[in-house]
């Protein structure tokens, strides 16, 4: 039970952080991406704040024997840089730039009842399913 609560609490705090930072407002996101227009650098501070905290906490926690509740850490091990990484990133960036929603904020604002996000999120989930079904690497 404690595991369920801790995971859900992480998700809840994550969503609140997105709200406080205003990542939940697509116009704010588009203002950040609009570097040649009326640029709003605020979201660089979101990334900065999050990276600052995690840069400190990650090495302290990940060098421990195991996490508090799970039997082991589940951390990415891949180091190779392939075409998929660049192309996938670029595709995601195009979609992000079109609507101002990345996955976390889209899910959060859809839960908050924002109509645009309620349209965006199902499409995004279909995209996730399609990619995992048809574009997954053959070796995985």
């Amino acid at each position, binding site marked *: 039970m404690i*595991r369920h609560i*801790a*995971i*859900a609490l*992480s*998700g*809840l*705090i*994550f*969503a609140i*952080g*997105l*709200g*406080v*930072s*205003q990542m939940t*407002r*697509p116009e704010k996101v*588009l203002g950040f*991406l609009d570097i040649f*227009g009326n640029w*709003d650098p*605020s979201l660089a*501070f979101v*990334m900065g*704040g*999050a*990276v600052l*905290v995690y840069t400190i906490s*990650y090495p302290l926690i990940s060098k421990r024997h195991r996490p508090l509740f*799970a039997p*082991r*850490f589940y*951390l*990415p091990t*891949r*180091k190779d840089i392939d075409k*998929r*990484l660049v192309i*996938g*990133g670029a*595709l*995601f*960036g*195009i*979609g*992000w730039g*079109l*609507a101002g929603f*990345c*996955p976390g904020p889209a*899910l959060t*604002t859809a839960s*908050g009842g924002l109509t645009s996000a309620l349209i*965006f*999120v199902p499409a995004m*989930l*279909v*995209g996730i399913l399609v990619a995992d079904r048809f*574009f997954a690497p053959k070796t995985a």
Partner: protein
Amino acid sequence: MVVEFTPISAALGGIIIGLAATLLLATEGRIAGISGILAGLFKGGSDKLGALPWQAFFVAGMVGGGILLRFLAPELVATDVQLSAAWLIPAGLIVGVGTRVGNGCTSGHGVCGLSRFSARSLVATLSFMAAAMITVFITRTLAVGAFG
């Protein structure tokens, strides 16, 4: 679109996001990458906690957070940007496909990956940032989408 520079609330929100990712790492040893967590909901092989995959609890928490925001700060889950379904649906599909092909999004690569000094995440982050900025430049120049 009225945009206002808000460095303090932005940094504070970022710190809260970093703490949330820290809590998930410390308790479950998992990376808080939202696209990967969403994808994990649909994977048969996901580790389960009881009847549900562990990802379901994180998503439930995020949904709870969204509902909470609606009551505490409704302006944060509203928007001035009006986009049609014909615009939002392709955008959503591309985001979904792109995050899976590229193995992550702003949270997994951008926040957690950069903090771990992952070269993969740096490449992915540069790729999606550049593509997003170019996309916004083009849509703004053509006066379409959010800029129309």
